[in-house]
């Protein structure tokens, strides 16, 4: 749970101003973006995610470098993705 993982916003979920569908290494899940309410997030933006919440907006270059790094660390990232796959947040 300790990892911050980058994800790309696919869509802001209609009717839920705090929720966005986010793609993390091919896993798409709803993430709460309420902590970044001043960032005017849009599809295509990258965010750093921790336990279902976006902590900060990051640029694509940073996101790609962080993903390369995480994909290289092996088990800890696999475990995080497995946990994310089990997530089904549907309300903020």
């Amino acid at each position, binding site marked *: *749970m*300790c*990892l*911050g993982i980058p994800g790309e916003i696919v869509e802001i979920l209609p009717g839920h101003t705090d929720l966005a569908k986010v793609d993390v290494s091919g896993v798409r899940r709803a993430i*709460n973006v*309420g*902590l*970044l*309410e*001043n960032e005017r997030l849009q599809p295509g933006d990258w965010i*750093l995610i*921790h*336990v*279902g*919440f976006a*902590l*900060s907006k*990051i*640029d694509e270059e*940073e996101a790609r*470098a*962080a993903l*390369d*790094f995480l994909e*290289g*660390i092996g*088990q*800890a990232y696999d*475990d995080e993705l497995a*946990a*994310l796959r*089990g*997530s*089904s*947040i*549907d*309300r*903020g």
Partner: protein
Amino acid sequence: MRFVDEYRDAEKARALSAKIASLCEPGRAYKFMEVCGGHTHTIYKHGLEDYLPETITLVHGPGCPVCVIPMGRVDDAIHIAERPGVVMTSFGDMMRVPGGRGSFFDSMAQGAEIRMVYSPLDALKVARQNPDKHVVFMAIGFETTAPSTAMTVLRAAAEEIGNFSIFCNHVTIIPAIKAILDSPDLRLDGFIGPGHVSTIIGCRPYEFIARDYGKPLVVAGFEPLDILQSIYMLLVQLAEGRSQIENQYARVVPWAGNLKALKAINEVMELRPYFEWRGLGFISHSALKVRERYAAFDAERIFEIPGSRVADPKACQCGEVLKGVLKPWECKVFGTACTPETPIGTCMVSSEGACAAYYNFGRFSRERVREATR
């Protein structure tokens, strides 16, 4: 060496390594603490010590949230989980952490209902789906994680969910750093500051370290180059006789932190007078509890909590490892009685724990290699 073969920026790493070596004063030994478990993970995964002169020692700090939970709090959580009609929810990392009476996994085997969740919002969903049960979320973590718990409590309050509470074990990083600075066991020359915690708290809370203790701190990212760059920045400060707080990870960490997150924490939680940390003992104002106005979501008010106090197993030296006094392999049970499969101490449980990082990457520290070849 894995790092040289695999890492895309090996050239840059070698260049940094040379610059680091050139800044070290002959005859002077340097000790830097990396506070965050994520940094410990990177250092051992990539063998970063091999890129540093032998006069630089990296010391692991207390920044692994799973590692600092004392056994008594695990027992208290299991006590709650065993109440009739309770569903305990927890991050996967907590499941194998041993208390005095076993772990969450052991408790599940004996019939308690404990579910792994990715997010506190998933725990809240379990509560919505099980109105006849009371769902408790085992809330752990530093300021990185506390906003998520706080936002979830705010959501539960807005929806007036009556069967959800948190068992709050959130801790704060600053008092732990202060405890280490005040400890007579360890003399440090500077800190590699935590990255993700700082996205929330920003850089200002560290200023006392430079001002009152005269030590530099550089907030660092998690990639190998980030850590080498941060060590370089620490050495530049020392060479110039400065001690300041600097931000190597500015591409992610804003100097002022995340105000919305800080407000959410402050709305839902307040500081406890004191809290027990594994290895560091009781530290004043070092943890968070739920405020009175959110009492309906506070498992400590809803359930009778035994307040268990359990001494760590005698053989376990997690305390010394967490304070940076011992290297993991210097612990008597490291890799023999204590392994990631059958951990005795918390440092072996989490992949962020110093012992698990050493164990999983099969990397002997250079001190040990020196000892073995002597």
